[in-house]
């Protein structure tokens, strides 16, 4: 084994060590052979670690030191809204009255939890301009699928079974077409214009009697506001389709434009992005869905309602698409989002969007002379640069991303959206100071210079991380997806 390898917890095991403190068994001991059929009693123990509590803490502390989070440094990962995760959220979510309650307790014993959920729904309705909100979906993609299933139910309830297609822009997140497929639709792609916006002529060409919905992110994944949103809504509604809002980029438009007012019929939000979930290393998220009145009957059940000053779940929803998740959604994440919204208030949320957009535009203008900017106009909360100028000099966007690691930054999202060559999608968020933005921009400018003067240093980056570039081909060709105890 290489001397610099970080030990796996399994490699620290020593028979006889324990890391737990279980209650003492205070009822008469019974041998399992008296209680279970012999062939269902486990004879070979699972090979789990045998380590002390200090071993565990040191192991995970070492792992955390090999991980970059927002608290470690700037994390301008486009489309992910890597803003600061407030600590009050973590405290509130751990209150015993929120963390240690069971979803099937009598409703009268959890009125505080239900009140919070209800009030969060009310706040999200106002923020999105929708008529009702469900908190059940567990994440953004789950919300997309939920929304599409409701659109499907809406069409089918009207006896309209010919709507088999969902339209998505070529710049859409991968989850959009995947969610459409899982909901049983066929995906049709609509092209972007040379302005980086949905090509209206192409949209007119692909819509029809078979259109179930158009899925749209606004601002789109290039960070540009779809100015012709009302025209697009009209095109879709005219043929009887529904307009779906992917809320991944809501941070760009809070208090500036509401999906409900733009003509959207269904909206999902990513509470772990705009509303400081946090991101958790890839989840858990929360993906509430908002709808307009005509889709209300199809909401997943149960629906939380207020009756005579008490909150209760309504299961009597005959047209509901059913359950999309056991229980009521990722409550713990919803508590955090609610805490955040209440910490910000109306003026705070407005400032969030304004500063997020100001920060993005400032960075874009400072970087513009040094990189190609395919769409030269005001961006919203993020912008996409192209590395094609650097590519001509033999340095790819991937190399520049790796070089940023040497400066202590998490790189932007790269090679996305797919319609920008060598794309770098940068989203600073509103919680970063001007000093941080300037330092990052300076690093980017230095890298652009290095590409011209000393490209090897970029091509061979990173130079300062605990490992350098990994052999991904080997990982895929000979997959090793778990550890086996050495014989």
């Amino acid at each position, binding site marked *: 084994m290489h001397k610099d390898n970080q030990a796996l917890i399994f490699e620290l*095991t020593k028979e006889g060590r324990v890391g737990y*403190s279980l209650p003492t068994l*205070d*009822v008469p001991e019974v041998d399992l052979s008296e209680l*279970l*059929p012999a062939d*269902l*009693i486990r004879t*070979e123990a*699972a090979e*789990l670690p045998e380590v002390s509590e200090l071993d*565990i803490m040191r192991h995970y502390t070492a792992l*955390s*030191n090999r991980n970059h989070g927002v*608290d470690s440094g700037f*994390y301008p990962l486009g489309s992910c809204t890597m*803003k600061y995760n*407030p600590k*009050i959220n973590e405290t509130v979510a751990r209150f015993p*009255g929120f963390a240690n309650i*069971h*979803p099937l307790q*009598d409703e009268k014993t959890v009125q*505080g939890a239900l009140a*919070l959920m209800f009030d969060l729904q009310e706040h999200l309705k106002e923020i999105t301009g929708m008529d009702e909100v469900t908190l059940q979906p567990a994440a953004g*993609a789950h919300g997309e699928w939920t929304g599409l299933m409701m659109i499907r139910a809406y069409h089918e309830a009207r006896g309209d079974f010919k709507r088999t297609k969902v339209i998505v822009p070529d710049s859409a*997140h*991968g989850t959009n077409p995947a969610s459409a497929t899982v*909901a049983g639709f*066929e995906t049709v792609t609509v092209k972007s214009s040379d302005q980086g916006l949905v090509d209206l002529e192409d949209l007119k060409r692909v819509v029809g009697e078979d259109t179930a919905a158009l899925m749209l992110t606004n601002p789109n994944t290039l960070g540009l506001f779809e100015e012709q*949103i009302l025209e697009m809504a009209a095109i879709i509604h005219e043929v009887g389709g529904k307009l779906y809002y992917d809320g991944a980029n809501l941070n760009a438009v*809070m*208090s500036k*434009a*509401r999906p409900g007012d733009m003509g959207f019929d269904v909206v999902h939000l990513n509470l*772990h992005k705009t509303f400081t979930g946090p*991101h958790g290393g*890839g*989840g*858990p998220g929360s993906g509430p869905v908002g709808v307009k009145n005509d889709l209300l009957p199809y909401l997943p059940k149960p629906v939380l309602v207020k009756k005579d000053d008490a909150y209760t779940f309504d299961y009597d929803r005959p047209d509901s698409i059913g*359950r*999309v998740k*056991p229980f009521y959604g990722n409550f713990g*994440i919803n508590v955090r989002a609610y*805490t955040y919204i209440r910490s910000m208030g*109306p003026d705070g949320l407005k400032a969030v969007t304004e*500063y997020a957009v*100001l920060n993005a535009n400032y960075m874009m203008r400072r970087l513009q002379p040094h990189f190609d900017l395919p769409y030269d106009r005001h961006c919203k909360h993020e912008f996409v640069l192209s590395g094609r100028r650097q590519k001509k000099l033999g340095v790819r966007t991937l190399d520049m991303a790796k070089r940023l*690691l040497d400066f202590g930054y998490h790189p932007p*999202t790269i090679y*996305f959206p797919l319609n920008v060559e060598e794309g770098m999608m940068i989203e600073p968020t509103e919680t970063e*100071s001007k000093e941080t933005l300037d330092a990052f921009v300076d690093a980017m400018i230095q890298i652009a210079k290095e590409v011209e003067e000393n490209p090897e240093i970029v091509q061979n980056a990173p130079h300062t*991380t605990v*490992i*350098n570039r*990994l*052999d991904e081909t080997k990982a*895929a060709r000979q*997959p090793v997806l*778990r550890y086996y105890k050495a014989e």
Partner: protein
Amino acid sequence: MKHRYLPMTSQDEKEMLETIGIGSIDELFSDIPEKVRFKGEYNIKPAKSESSLTKELAQLAAQNADTNRYASFLGAGVYDHYKPIIVDHVISRSEFYTAYTPYQPEISQGELQAIFEFQTMISELTGMDIANSSMYDGGTALAEAGMLAAGHTRRKKILVSRAVHPESRAVVRSYALGQSIEVVEIPLKDGHTDMDALTEMIDENVATVMIQYPNFFGQVENLKAIEPIVHGAGALLSVSSNPLALGALTSPGQLGADITVGDAQPFGIPEAFGGPHCGYFAVTKKLMRKVPGRLVGETTDEEGRRGFVLTLQAREQHIRRDKATSNICSNQALNALAASVAMTALGKVGTQEIAKQNIVKTHYMKQQLKKAGLEIAFEGAHFNEIVVKTKESVKQLNDRLFENGMIGGYDLGLSYNELSGHMLVAVTEQRTKEEIDAFVQEIAAKVQEVGATHA
């Protein structure tokens, strides 16, 4: 606007506007058509200071009856188990919880290695070859198992036992609707999957048979007898399993499961009113390339050092887009980390001991209930839940238990008409003998009362 999360000063703002070459922030929003522009501010509650908001929300939380204050006999898929205190200390390290998906492996080795270890632990407990990096929860994981099986076998029918969690079955039905897959339920017999019915119902159109182990009633299904029936028809065996029970029970993998899913909530994750929990998804090697969600694999860097990366991504939505078989993107990474820490703390010995304690304490509860004259509905082998017939309505009984500091069991009549007047009682290692005795006394009190009025 001054706010502790917003570092912008008026000086910063001025300088930045100058660099951009505009006079006001408003100009940056000039591309939003006048007609859709939102004027003013949201009509929502005003911002609160840190301390006053904390106080308000603490009061709201205190309105809920939590398991720190009440002894809970409620399970039904979510359990009050021992949570090693170290779990919260590890997941509170913000290098973990403020990171996102480990797309840049050089600065995400901590998360990647933690997931690799999670995959290993789940594989070990379930006896499966491979596990993924997590799913939303046990219910959606089971639904995804159905989708995988339908795709793999090219068959359009799922058989799901009625002894599977009712809410998981509901989620399976919702997912199946999207894919136009038929879902048929296998009836119950004595609190187990009816094997004769299964034998009769299975045919070459069935993609998978879904069994819960231990099942919703706490009964340990005889997977050994079920397996040949399923595979005999060329279907896949999907098992939904409480991983904590597998410290004592023969693993689904050893009993021939093709897919094992479930929820790792029993390992260190709070009940949290039903979420976030932590779904897991494990398969045999032959299904490796069809697993939904993220997988972490081991490899080496240019200098031969061991490292970990997201791998086999060609399965996933961001590469395959509309050809992907699952749309999952964000999963439950932080809770997978929590479960890993709990599984590590319990370790090889503790996972056996905790599982055994659950069985033995539940057995004690069963004996005491019988002694008190109550009828136990199903006499088969159990894990940590049993079904008891109550002499009064379950709701009335639960109200009385609550007044005495206890959260009673699940009212089975809510999901099974034939089981109205039956309570599903969970006894974890957390319940003391005293608490169990108090519970029995309360539930039996009514029995005597009824007897007295009839005398």
